[in-house]
């Protein structure tokens, strides 16, 4: 069982249900990752506005698996990718902004795109339940409780379309949305809760919210552009 040094969710659960607190075991980390983690000390958890405990555990496990801590960046939850997803689901996009939601509802062909009668928030709610049910059926535990190797196997099968959710929403559609949201949480402006400390941008050398490159475009021709990475709040 993989656990964070302090499993907040397990703590909350035990506080509610009165069950024993989870035993915490830290996995060994590389020296690089430890340095990186120390450099970007995770701030106090900002809390969730949409995800419930089960959903939060699932999203945290998924984003930390997809974005592990290493020399290139802190892990997904330390980047706030889970917070990005929570805020996106609680906000207009999650509630179906700019999404045509009139029936009748048909499955359609793949080329007809998204056809579910669900807002993104509703898809997450149903999708996480179904994904955990599949995990329990296959591995005996929910997604946040299975091993790294099992998570990898599950995600690979899921991405390849080899996983189906009985009675749940189409597995592939939910995977596509989840994956896209993880990328958004890593690479969107930090103003949305993810990409904390601009670490996603720094990882690839994207300079962020630059006012002008008129002087740079020739100066940095075939040269690495080195400058402070700037976000919207830095310039506001």
């Amino acid at each position: 069982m993989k656990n964070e040094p302090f499993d907040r969710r397990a703590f909350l659960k035990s506080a509610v249900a009165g069950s024993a607190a989870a035993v915490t075991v830290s996995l060994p980390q590389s020296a690089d990752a430890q340095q990186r983690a120390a450099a970007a000390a995770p701030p106090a958890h900002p809390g969730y506005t949409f995800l419930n405990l089960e959903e939060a555990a699932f999203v945290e496990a998924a984003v930390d698996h997809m974005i592990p801590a290493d020399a290139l960046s802190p892990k997904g939850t330390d980047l706030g990718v889970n917070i990005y997803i929570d805020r996106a689901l609680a906000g207009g996009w999650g509630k179906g902004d700019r999404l045509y939601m009139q029936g009748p509802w048909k499955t359609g062909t793949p080329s007809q795109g998204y056809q579910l009668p669900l807002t993104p928030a509703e898809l997450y709610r149903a999708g996480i339940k179904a994904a955990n049910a599949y995990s329990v059926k296959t591995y005996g535990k929910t997604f946040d409780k299975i091993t790294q190797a099992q998570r990898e196997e599950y995600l690979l099968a899921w991405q390849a379309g080899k996983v189906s959710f009985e009675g749940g929403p189409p597995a592939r559609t939910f995977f596509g949305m989840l994956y896209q949201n993880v990328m958004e949480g890593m690479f969107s402006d930090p103003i949305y809760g993810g990409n904390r400390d601009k670490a996603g941008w720094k990882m690839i050398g994207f300079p962020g919210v630059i006012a002008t490159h008129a002087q740079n475009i020739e100066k940095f021709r075939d040269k690495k552009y080195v400058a402070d990475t700037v976000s919207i709040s830095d310039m506001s």
Partner: protein
Amino acid sequence: MATKLKEVDVVVVGLGWTGGILSKELTEAGLKVVALERGAANSTAADYAVPNIRDELRYVIRHELMQNAAKDTLTARNTPQQEALPMRRLGSFLPGEGVGGSGIHWSGGTWRWTDMDFKVRSLYEERYGKKYIPEDMTLQDWGITYAEMEPYYDKFERIAATSGKAGNLKGQILAGGNPFEAPRASEYPLPPLKSVLAAEMFADTAAKAGYHPFPRPTANASQPYTNPDGTKFGACQYCGYCQRFGCEANAKGSPHMTVIPIAMKNPKFEMRTHSWVTKVLKDSSGKRVTGVLYTNVLSGEEFEQPASIVLLTAFSLNNVHLMMLSGIGKPYDPVTQTGIIGKNFSYDTGPSGRLFFEGRNFNPFMAAGGSNHVIDDFNGDWNFDRSKHGYVGGFIVSAGFNTALPIGYRPVPGGTPSWGSEWKAATAKWYQTSMGISARSGVMPHRHNYYDLDPTYKNALGQPLMRLTFDFKANEHKMNEHGAQVINEIAKSMNPTRLGAARGSTEPWTVARYQSTHTSGGSIMGTNPRVSAVNTALQSWDCHNLFVVGANVFPHGGAYQPTGLVGALAYRTADIIKKQYLKNPGALVSA
């Protein structure tokens, strides 16, 4: 019950490039013009300012400047046998909404379509024989010539601050420009934009292979500029946030900072935003329109705006939709091949290849909207023999950068995992060391590519959605296969560390993935009402005081982006209304 307003001379439906141009021109001719725009008014200072405009999530991913699909979208299917379903989220194409329309979020590609397009059927039949054009390809001549369009192209290029290099000045072929363009009367108003490494590497290799690369003509001002109307442009800042964004530097030619403010200063002009036009009204004869019906979307109130002339100047799809909802012209029937409204929906398409160069620094985040070099050897060159490949049309090939932002643009070589440390390492390694080469060809019209009204789904005002039946056909597959071959040959000569080869896809068209906003056709232009919805002045054959201005009049799709031609056609229609129609209102071309 709609409130009936006082009659005006002209009502303009949709205030982007075409509505803006016609509003300015016709108010200057002394007409009282009311422009109705479904979206809101925007200004560079308030809405496109740094830092908030530099937000990929908001503008690229969440489509802030686009039509709201929750309120109005279309249904789509690949074949008439399928059931069409709503495009529930915008994907394949992105119509703009609000004052300025798609002219706010375009990247500025400005091309001159030539007689090779306008005389397409005649030229192909003459050169390749009558049997060369497939029976189901509903190709036809447009009825206009490059010579008559030339001054209007020039006008639009100057108004929109187009940067480029002439390749054919009055018949003289000039180095550095496109040698296959039709003769221009004058140079571009501004010199080409600064080029980027990826475009230069592509251009060097293409030139060595015997092709003729040139900088893509683009309405991004390469230096500070004042256009003939007195509008001041700033210089392009190469900010990397162009396509899908408004321009904070006022360097991108956009209607909200050019033609529309000029119209606004004229007391003859009135702009009404949040006004969603639902119907064009006809008189009892059905041969004249009397105005439009619209809903104020802030209050829900309905109004009738009577007018002597009605101009449909919305996005191409919405112009056709409004004609159908209003019963103007006979709807096209693909079974009997009768009727015209909805016919010849077209688009553009093309493969792309990806090149990875260890050790290079492309700086993909430093780019204008048009930091590309292009070759036109397989499109503009009529001597290029299409019969070897068996298609009608052609493609341009280009390389460079435009809006390579990190949520959407993170190239990694094939076989890279989608997550984990290995994925992170590859993403970090290749973001700055990769470039693409892509081809773009026009979709040729086909009997089964068309619009009609959906029998089931409705928009927010309870009207039937447009239904689009569309797929790529054999002609596109052949062009894409050839395009991929050309890309791969050039790419291999560039000796990349890794190459993601271009492939000519035969997958069905999908609404889910963005491809291009160059939808065209549906109320096409031509020389007689049997085969066209509007005449060459873009005047409805059915109602002489209705003009329909947009890419919806294109009888087929092209390799070039459409806006240069759309803008030129708007100026031409304005001229025709001023010089001919007002003196003698009636059919300008006898049927």
